[in-house]
């Protein structure tokens, strides 16, 4: 398998969850400079794009009317812009020169921009995003960590959330999808990239990822052994998230 940083983390997380066997995999690592977001290119250049060529840090965009030169870094997917670990950390061989690590504060900013809003504004934002959903489940299918044989939304009895594209159904889907990723999301951003309705959803998983880093000093997929904190049980568990715990 040829893997970028995020994909290497996903492989690790899947090995931890016993979905993949590391001995059966040979990982060819490639340091990743980020994936281009064609929506961003189209909104800058217009619809008449016929081809895009990468040339170092530049993008040569060919349109029906001629060429336009863009700066590559401005047209990355949001998740790639704030990527902390662009280098595969446990590949069997590495191709290319390792890149500098990303700035963890950038990931933090996404969370802060959301957290500093009032509760009403946060809910309004969540509603605006979630309620564009068409329940196509492209986010789920693209997610490296969504591998359940039967997803909770497909379960009929009991039904965990409304089935259709209703406000309750859409909100239920987006909340539970995110929470199932607690301590498991590797920040690859595949969910947002796959969404046909341009729904922002990594602000939810980034918040969970931040809490995992902050409260448990844990980041999913950094190695192929560590259990996500919410999946691990220890006898000296502090139980600090219950009201009377300590």
């Amino acid at each position: 398998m040829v893997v970028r940083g995020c994909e290497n983390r996903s492989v690790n997380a899947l090995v931890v969850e016993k979905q993949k066997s590391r001995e059966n995999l040979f990982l060819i690592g490639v340091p990743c400079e980020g994936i281009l977001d064609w929506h961003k290119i189209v909104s800058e250049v217009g619809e008449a794009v016929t081809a895009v060529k990468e040339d170092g840090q530049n993008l040569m965009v060919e349109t029906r009317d001629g060429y336009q030169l863009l700066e590559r870094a401005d047209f990355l997917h949001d998740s790639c812009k704030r990527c902390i670990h662009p280098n595969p950390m446990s590949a069997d061989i590495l191709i290319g020169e390792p890149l500098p690590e990303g700035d963890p504060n950038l990931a933090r900013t996404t969370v802060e921009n959301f957290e500093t809003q009032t509760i009403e504004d946060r809910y309004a934002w969540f509603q605006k995003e979630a309620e564009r959903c068409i329940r196509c489940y492209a986010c789920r299918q693209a997610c490296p960590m969504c591998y359940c044989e039967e997803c909770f939304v497909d379960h009929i009895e009991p039904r965990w959330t409304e089935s259709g594209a209703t406000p309750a159904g859409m909100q239920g889907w987006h909340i539970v999808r995110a929470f199932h990723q607690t301590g498991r999301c590797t920040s690859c951003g595949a969910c947002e990239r796959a969404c046909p309705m341009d729904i922002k959803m990594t602000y939810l998983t980034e918040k969970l990822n931040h809490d995992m880093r902050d409260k448990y000093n844990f980041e999913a997929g950094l190695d192929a052994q560590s259990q996500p904190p919410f999946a691990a049980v220890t006898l000296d568990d502090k139980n600090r998230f219950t009201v009377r715990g300590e």
Partner: protein
Amino acid sequence: MNHILEKHTLQDLLQSWRQDYDVYLPQKMENFSHFMPLTETSVLVDGDPHNTRIPPKALFLPMNEALVKFTRFGGYEDAKHEIQSRIVFGIRPCDAQAVQLLDTSFIQEDNIDPLWSERREKTITIGLGCHEPCQTGFCTTVGYGPFDRADLDAMLTDLGETYLVETFSEAGEGCFLGLPVASEEIYNQALDIQRSAHDQMPVAFETENLKGKLEQNFKSDYWDTVSQSCLGCGVCTFLCPTCFCFDIVDETQRRERVRNWDSCMFRTYSLEASGHNPRPSRVERTRQRLSHKYVYWLDQVNQIGCTGCGRCVRYCPVGLDIRAMLRQAQTLPFEVSHAA
């Protein structure tokens, strides 16, 4: 009759329709356009060469809608839907064709979907032809075109500062009463634009013998190859203007029986109560999606069930391209003697 509509008077005209109709037209939603009801403050989308992201089939078959409401003590009643008279303005010809195709499924002699048919009867559709064909569309390849009339009541051709309005029905004519009649010269100018748009559309794949090839190669490895990168999400089917599958679900907490859009690309679509799944993998599901459009529609109504809008190409998260899949299908072996 043919009229001339000055673009700067469009907003007033649309607003005047609101006295008698609900008016739906593409409006900006985030980075795309979406059919929404016109309000006093609606801003028209100007210059979007694309069709709306969600196809207008949703105006006739909503993503989610209650069919039955359960009452106390085991009773039930029909869910009430107040269906207003509407004008849908700015529908693209590929989407108008798609709605007309769907009539063959929802309005059959002895089997009429009452909600679909009432919405169709109460809707005047005014098309907007595509003078700048979009990159992923392939309407002419599948036998349609960027200025096809379908069963539109009227259609607009963009002439820069003005639109040429062609009306095809009494209802369509009624929407544009009092507008100046277009001269022969302007009409010819519009016809040139229409022809040139049609000619700009490339042939995306050959359709000759395509149906036979897909049928005869039902068990071919071809299906493994073309479905390999498929994620199994519902983007291609939900954004498809001719996909119409739905699921009926009892939402017990709301005490409603609802119908939701469903997709043949989902595992649960063909999953049977016994646990058996006749389409166990994405290979069979991909074959079903393509065959429905390029084989079964032809068997049923002798028309290709794809109008070439290009949404599935544009929005597939992994870049699967039905045009390339069908070009590849054209290389499959084919025996003419079988075809009869």
